[in-house]
């Protein structure tokens, strides 16, 4: 497709449940980012991939959060033993760099609600 696709759009998880969120980036985009957006806040950086390499995971809030991109395209963000504070919209973005500007395209996000 033409855009970044994320699934599921909505996820309700019981506290303690594991969840997996999927991101299909734009074909050919080398860089992929995950962001967390709490209600009424700006997105906050979680982690960054260049192809299959996870170059920065400094934004992951705890060791319950894990991201992978094994073949350099589709990425999965996994949250183990979900807690209420994990409730947020999780945004994926893929990006190119053309020597002058950075072209970020965000997906519509997955809204996670932990009950």
């Amino acid at each position: 497709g033409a855009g970044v696709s994320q699934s599921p759009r909505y996820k309700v998880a019981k506290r303690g449940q594991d969840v997996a969120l999927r991101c299909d980036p734009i074909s050919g985009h080398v860089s992929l980012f995950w962001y967390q957006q709490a209600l009424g806040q700006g997105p906050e950086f979680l982690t960054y991939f260049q192809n299959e390499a996870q170059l920065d995971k400094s934004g992951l809030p705890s060791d319950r959060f894990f991201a992978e991109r094994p073949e350099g395209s589709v990425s999965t963000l996994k949250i183990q033993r979900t807690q209420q504070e994990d409730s947020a919209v999780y945004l994926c973005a893929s990006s190119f760099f053309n020597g002058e500007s950075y072209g970020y395209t965000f997906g519509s996000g997955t809204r996670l609600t932990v009950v």
Partner: protein
Amino acid sequence: QQQVKQSPQSLIVQKGGIPIINCAYENTAFDYFPWYQQFPGKGPALLIAIRPDVSEKKEGRFTISFNKSAKQFSLHIMDSQPGDSATYFCAASPDLNSNSGYALNFGKGTSLLVTP
């Protein structure tokens, strides 16, 4: 800590007015300053972006003003329309060669309402 400070939190203008949203940063390693527009249920979409080597950039009705010495930048929306009602985020990114590539540091957002 919030690396990019954005104000105001919300803004109401009449159609045709010129809303202005301001952002400030401290990190001199920031090298790229985009603005994003977000509608409910959607991801942020890039509006316009500026690098520190210019003081102003205009694209259509959107203008960024950049003051490198003050470490401030702002978004002006000319002839605003009700369809511009959305949340606007400023952001800043470090140099491409940093470890985080060009991960964006976002402001907290400004909710803009343009009344008919």
